[in-house]
């Protein structure tokens, strides 16, 4: 279980996270929604250790990971995988090398075993072996996302983090990526946190949805509960109303 307790963060005097409290149950997908620039990615970056909070706690299985450093933090990082918004594939490595990268860096597997695992992931992501030798700049947006998902999943993480996983994708590819997330979750049973503003698609994959607004979680519940939430802010966001988006 991941528990965020009273998390605050300011940048240059501007409070981006203002006392976030949120619990992400083990084995479930939690989606944090909210308009662009509201601090969703900042929240995610705190949980994956890229940012340190001004105050508050991020408790994973009883341990406050905001206090970890050095070897302990590295060991914690081995437990999770991250799918970044743009994929964050390494430009200088081809698809095979990108997916194999965590295994080559962090395990002592033989090249034959690494190749086997990489090819299994490619099949899982519905990618053909022909893409293995392609470089990231030769791939479409959807393929990049699938390769990045394969890389994030290659070490079979206990926790997965998704930062705007379908931003910039066309509707069929959006469906494909959400299908792959659901499929990999069913197969592996990992705990997941996704930040996204893709309404209503996220309601299909989420076990729990939380809405972030002005640095606070203003609503949390199942997809159905959020869709029927009485808060006008939540309803306004779900319906994509202009006055709310500009407010």
């Amino acid at each position, binding site marked *: 279980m991941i528990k965020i307790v009273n998390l605050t963060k300011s940048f240059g005097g501007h409070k981006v996270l203002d006392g976030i409290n949120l619990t992400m149950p083990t084995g479930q997908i939690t989606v944090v929604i909210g308009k662009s620039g509201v601090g969703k990615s900042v929240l995610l*970056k705190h949980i*994956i*250790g*890229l940012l340190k909070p001004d105050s508050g706690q991020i408790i994973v299985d009883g341990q406050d990971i905001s206090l970890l450093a050095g070897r302990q*933090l*590295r*060991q914690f*990082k*081995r437990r*999770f*995988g*991250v799918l*970044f*918004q*743009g994929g*964050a*594939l*390494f*430009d200088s490595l081809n698809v095979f090398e990108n997916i194999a*990268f*965590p295994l080559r*860096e*962090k395990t002592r597997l033989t090249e034959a075993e690494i190749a086997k695992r990489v090819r299994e992931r490619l099949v899982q992501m519905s990618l053909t072996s022909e893409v293995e030798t392609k470089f990231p700049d030769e791939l479409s947006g959807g393929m990049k996302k699938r390769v990045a998902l394969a890389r994030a999943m290659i070490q079979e993480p206990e926790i997965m983090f998704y930062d705007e996983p379908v931003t910039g994708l066309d509707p069929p590819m959006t469906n494909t990526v959400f299908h792959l997330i659901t499929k990999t979750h069913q197969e592996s049973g990992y705990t997941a946190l996704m930040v996204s503003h893709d309404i209503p698609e996220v309601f299909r994959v989420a076990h729990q949805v939380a809405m972030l607004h002005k640095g606070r979680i203003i609503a949390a519940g199942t997809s159905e509960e959020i869709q029927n939430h009485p808060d006008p802010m939540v309803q306004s966001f779900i319906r994509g109303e202009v006055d709310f988006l500009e407010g």
Partner: protein
Amino acid sequence: MANLVRQLGQRSLNVVIEAGGMVIFLLEGLALALVPPFRPRRLLQEIYQIGVKSTLIVMLTGAFTGMVMALQGYYTLKQYGSEGALGSAVALSLIREMGPVLTGIMVSARAGSAVTAEIGIMRITEQLDALDTMAVNPIQYVVMPKLLAGVIAVPFLTAIFDVVGILGGYLVGVVLLGVSSGSYFAGMVRSVVPLDVYGGIVKSLVFGLTIILVACYKGYYTQHGAEGVSKATNQTVVLSAVLILAWDYVLTSFFM
């Protein structure tokens, strides 16, 4: 007036903060060279990118520098009937000053700018963050091999610059202007002492480290998308060139 003083103070503070940040960045990079995992293949890749790929431009610059120096030197020395000293004039100028400085500036323009752009793009496309989340230290994986490659490659490039420059001077002085081949090389052997060579090597080591440190630092802390990368790349070339010239003065006064 108070506003002007405040702005001046703020800018001075920023310079000190940046200089301190760069020193910490350097120390972290060098310390991580001693910590496993060691990645010799990454080091060889960077020596190829920074060193081997700069060889042609360094040779071209060296050849034309040597040729121009021979041309200028010949007509100056001729006024005093000392054309025979052309070899030593060309060699001393190249080994002590022109070789390390011009090699440094050429490496900064070619490889330094490329390093900043590469790391800057890795920053804005979250590739550095991706490394971090995989428990791979981005400074150890990306920066440290480049720093070592700069220290290794630039002295070799400087040596190539010096040799090609001397040959360029030979072409103009001996082949085109008729200075005796024997006096060109004999003067060189007489006047160049080991301290000149050591001085050149020390300068090239310091310049190599400075160029790649500035390039990595500017790239690593790039902000604001493509425009930020462009700005960082520009700052790398300008700052490297200024630091090379400043270091050159300090090191020359030390060796004199």
